[in-house]
């Protein structure tokens, strides 16, 4: 650094001198780190903790140094792409870095990382955005859209003036970007069907502005470094009220299941998590179930009861304080004593533990009340129930890729049994009773036994159903980091057409080479059922080769059957390809478990 340019920085002479002496003698790499550190200081009033490794700060700087023109395009025909490529070609020829990206491939949240973006966007039908820009458009116009005060932009709108809402999408985009604080470089240009001349003029104008936009600003570029968060004050005893950003069903309309992709905002929480961690959700029981239970018991919901020395209306206690979708042995004993029911008493005394176990597993409090009716006082009933415990879900996002968000993949539990509708507590709370904009109380649960290995180590992920969740986080993290290790995913569910969770994301990861292999098993698409364990056996040779190459195995999902079936399949692989007998293979898997090369998150 050869002296700071006078008059450019808002420092007085003394401050300038002390800054210069503070950085004197630093290497180029140290200087880069320091610049990120200082930028981080500026960006946040939070406590700054230097990161042990320089990796992140350097990555941040590298990102900022890639100051370029991004041309985002969306159109139903190839016209938008063609104009975008024209602009990129012209800019490149003039010596500037420029890239054209389809809005279909652009992650909307990344807009805040951009500094110079031009849009080429068409309008269809009655003022609708093109298919490939639909989600971006929706995001930008939603309250999820971030502030864009460091963005400069220009919009070229394509349209057909024989329609009423000519170029509407372009105008919406243009106005919204300004509203979000972005600076408009030039007024929106409308193009009709004969767009050539207008589009070329617009391209000329942008290209002529580039030396000013990219050249000058580059020398003053302040690298942005994300401030490292102070330890969050939110935890189990003080959960964070997270706003629901998205509650989206991700199984198709013909699916037998209702799986939700839920995005929560962690903004301002200071909460941090790593791929593999879980999020605990403070759930509430379904109001309909509470009402039915009160009805069965002939109790008044307004009755005051005491739970943990606090007074509640009975309805509230059953909704948010006590467990009613799960029964405990204690409850069953109390209820047997109260009801004096012989059948219940004999089941409790039976030497067959599986009968009781199955009963506990397959019944809720209301089932017991219906099957073995008895009169009970409100406070006595409350005393039989366990406190409602938080429900934990494997996090399905990478925080590095989504700094202020946490994503969950939740299967809503609803089923018909014993002639009545049944609901899960937390899953239906998340799926049915939380709308976008509502808040839900959460905290992070560490899971240090389910962690990505070093970046160059290959991984094999086996996650049928919502067991896919942590692997979405894994792959997102590896994509964000540019990790070198190969990634192989096994996924299974009922039907290809409706239950291929996150299908579009996996297809994109495969296309980008981030996901190395993806093997799927859809059990109900053909007469004989096919599961992930069948795919594991079919690919035994290759899978063994990966294991020999040091791959780490991960399994997530159902503990009752899947985890065991997969373990059996892995034993078969070791027997078939490794020449071990069954016992030795099982032992080998145990060793792998001990070495952290076979990690499970099953429930």
């Amino acid at each position, binding site marked *: 650094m050869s002296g700071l340019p006078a008059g450019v920085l808002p420092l007085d002479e003394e401050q300038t001198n002390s800054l210069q002496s503070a950085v004197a003698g630093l290497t180029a790499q140290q200087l880069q780190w320091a610049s990120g550190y200082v930028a981080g200081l500026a960006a946040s009033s939070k406590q700054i903790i230097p990161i042990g490794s320089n990796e992140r700060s350097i990555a941040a700087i590298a990102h900022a140094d890639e100051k370029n023109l991004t041309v985002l395009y969306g159109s139903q025909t190839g016209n938008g792409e063609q104009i975008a490529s024209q602009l990129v070609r012209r800019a490149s020829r003039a010596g500037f870095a420029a890239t054209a990206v389809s809005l279909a491939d652009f992650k909307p949240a990344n807009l805040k990382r951009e500094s110079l973006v031009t849009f080429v966007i068409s309008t269809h039908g009655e003022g609708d955005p093109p298919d490939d820009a639909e989600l971006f458009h929706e995001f930008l116009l939603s309250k999820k859209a971030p502030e864009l005060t460091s963005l400069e932009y220009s919009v070229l709108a394509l349209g057909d003036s024989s329609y009423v809402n000519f170029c509407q999408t372009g105008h919406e985009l243009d106005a919204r970007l300004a509203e979000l604080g972005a600076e408009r470089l030039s007024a929106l240009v409308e193009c009709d*069907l004969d767009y050539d001349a207008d589009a070329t003029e617009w391209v000329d104008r942008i290209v002529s502005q580039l030396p000013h936009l990219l050249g000058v600003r580059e020398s003053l570029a302040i690298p942005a470094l994300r401030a490292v968060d102070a330890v969050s004050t939110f935890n189990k005893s003080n959960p964070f009220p997270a706003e629901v950003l998205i509650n989206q069903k*991700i199984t198709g*309309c013909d699916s037998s299941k209702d799986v939700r992709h839920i995005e929560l905002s962690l903004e301002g929480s200071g909460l941090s998590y790593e791929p593999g961690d879980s999020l605990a959700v403070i759930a509430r029981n379904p109001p309909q179930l509470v009402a039915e239970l009160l009805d069965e018991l002939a109790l008044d919901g307004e009755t005051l009861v005491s739970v943990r020395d606090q007074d509640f209306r009975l309805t509230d206690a059953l909704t948010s304080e006590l467990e009613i979708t799960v029964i405990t042995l204690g409850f069953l004993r109390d209820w047997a004593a109260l009801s004096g029911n012989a059948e219940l008493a004999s089941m409790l005394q039976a030497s067959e533990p599986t009968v009781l176990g199955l009963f506990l597993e397959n019944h809720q409090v209301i089932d017991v009340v219906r099957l073995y009716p008895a009169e009970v006082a409100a406070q006595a009933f409350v005393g039989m129930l366990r406190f409602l415990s938080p429900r934990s879900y494997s996090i399905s996002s990478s925080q590095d890729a989504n700094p202020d968000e946490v994503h969950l993949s939740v299967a809503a539990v609803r089923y018909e049994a014993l002639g009545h509708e049944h609901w899960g507590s937390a899953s239906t709370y998340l799926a049915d009773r939380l709308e976008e904009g509502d808040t839900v109380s959460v905290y992070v649960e560490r899971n240090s036994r389910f962690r990505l290995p070093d970046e160059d180590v290959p991984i094999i992920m086996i996650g049928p159903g919502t067991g896919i969740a942590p692997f979405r986080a894994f792959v997102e993290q590896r994509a964000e980091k540019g990790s070198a290790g190969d990634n192989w995913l096994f996924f299974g569910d009922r039907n290809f057409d409706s239950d291929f969770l996150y*299908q579009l994301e996996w297809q994109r990861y*495969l296309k980008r080479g981030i996901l190395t292999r993806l093997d*799927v098993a859809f059990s109900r698409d053909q007469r004989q059922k096919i599961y992930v364990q069948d795919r594991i056996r079919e690919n035994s040779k290759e899978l063994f080769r990966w294991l020999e190459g040091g791959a780490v195995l991960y399994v997530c999902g159902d503990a009752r059957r899947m985890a065991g079936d997969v373990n059996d399949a892995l034993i078969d692989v070791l027997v078939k390809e490794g020449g071990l007998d069954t016992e030795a293979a099982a032992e080998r898997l145990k060793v792998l478990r001990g070495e952290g090369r076979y990690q499970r998150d099953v429930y």
Partner: protein
Amino acid sequence: MSDANLTEVEVIKATSRHLRGTLEDGLSDPLTGAVADSDTHVSKFHGIYQQDNRDIRSERKRQKLEPAYSFMIRARIPGGLLTTSQWLGLDRIATEHANQTIRLTTRQAIQYHGVVKRDLKKTVAEINQAALDTIAACGDVNRNVMAPPLPGLSSIHREVQRQAEALSEHLMPKSRAYHEIWLDGDKIESSKTDVEPIYGDTYLPRKFKAAFVVPPQNDVDVFSQDLGFITIVKDGLILGFNVSVGGGMGMTHGETDTYPRLGDVLGFIRPDEVLAVAEAVVTIQRDFGDRTNRKHARLKYTIEDRGVDWFRAEVERRSGVIFDEPEKYAFAANGDTYGWQRDDVGAWHYGLFVENGRVGDFDDRRMLSGLRAIAQQHSTEFRLTPNQNLIIGKVAEKDKADIDALLVEYGIENSAHASPLRLNSMACVAFPTCGLAMAESERYLPTLIDKLDAALKRHGLGEEPITIRMTGCPNGCARPYIAEIGLVGKGPGRYTLFLGAGFAGGRLGAPYLDNANEEEVLGALSPLFERFARERLEGEHFGDFLVRSGVVREITAGRHIHDG
């Protein structure tokens, strides 16, 4: 024309190794319900279109699921002639693999919708087991050859059908790709290659449509075809054919150098000259058609750009056939004939109205089941008409009453739901499966007709036959530009209204309203119906009246359609 200017589809054809592409790989990829983008063009030559359910396209994107891909499969059925056992095979396939309907097309073929990729190969194989195939039902080749299904002139008709089948066979692609991919046929040795003597390695620049017609019925809309043969009959024998070339429906909204066009009659030829002339027409289009712009690639533009006289001379040079002056002929209508008709050998045929060609079981109208019962019990032949209807053919006198009873039992007899306007209506498929649709068509036209029927009744026109056709986009599958009332989709709920076409398919309509919604369409037509009722000449058709009274321009040539 330099290679650099060729369209993407031309490059795909050239590198497809005679229609193989990477289809086999795509069929076995379990991670997507689609095939590779380039293969969506290749598959068309095999009669297969990749589509997706557009009703849920945006919902699926939110669900992070790819579009609900499925395939439309079209069978090749020259002249629309099917044995009832073939029909029963098609019926079973519809029920097992498709969406439980059979869609009769405007080219006398049938198509299935909603076949998912994992069922595709099985479905195509089963169509072949039913003694049909899907080769060249779509793609840049000669499509299904049409011929009149009208049994009234039976011996003539049988000969025309024979000609249509011969032409279809002659212009079939010779590639073995279809048999390799769909029927597990032996693979061609890597050192060898297929030879396409007529088409060459890149086939035609665009689709190509051929039809035979027997006046006075112009049910095949011969002037909408790239190549038409107008049968000239004298003393009960076929004298020969007037040859018409350069018809075609498609255009693009807002691009005035694209337009529908009616064919020009080149002259008269003898029956034994049909194949030579057809092959010459096809090879001229192969060599001179525009391969740099698919919107300008149909034969109609080749002829428009170079002139009819040049084209006639080139056909004569290539075929060695010299055209005679065209013989006289006259067309009366371009619709179908309904109800019972008896042919020259005493067999009966029932023209069954199939609204928009959709054969399925809907509430109390169970056409799929009804036709199954009829095919199993009584009839030996079904004929698909050019207007998406079906003729129950070759019924013995003694079986007529039974068939009438079955038609009533299944709620599908013609009188049950059809006004003359409805009987003269056609709509393309459009939403939810067609990727080109901009507006509803098949799902909407029936309710629009309800409203138009009410308006016609108010003006005493309830029994007036008027042709009405709707398409969801300007490509014109249902030939809307030669309907007296033509509605061409432009956006959701919005149509361009064409009026003034000839009742017999001899004149194009002129654009009357652009981008109109239902209210505007009804608001425009109701006063015109009133005027027509008051001012029409004896026997005058609605389209002729609108032109005579100056309500719309007379369109004398397709290139003038945008002049107004």
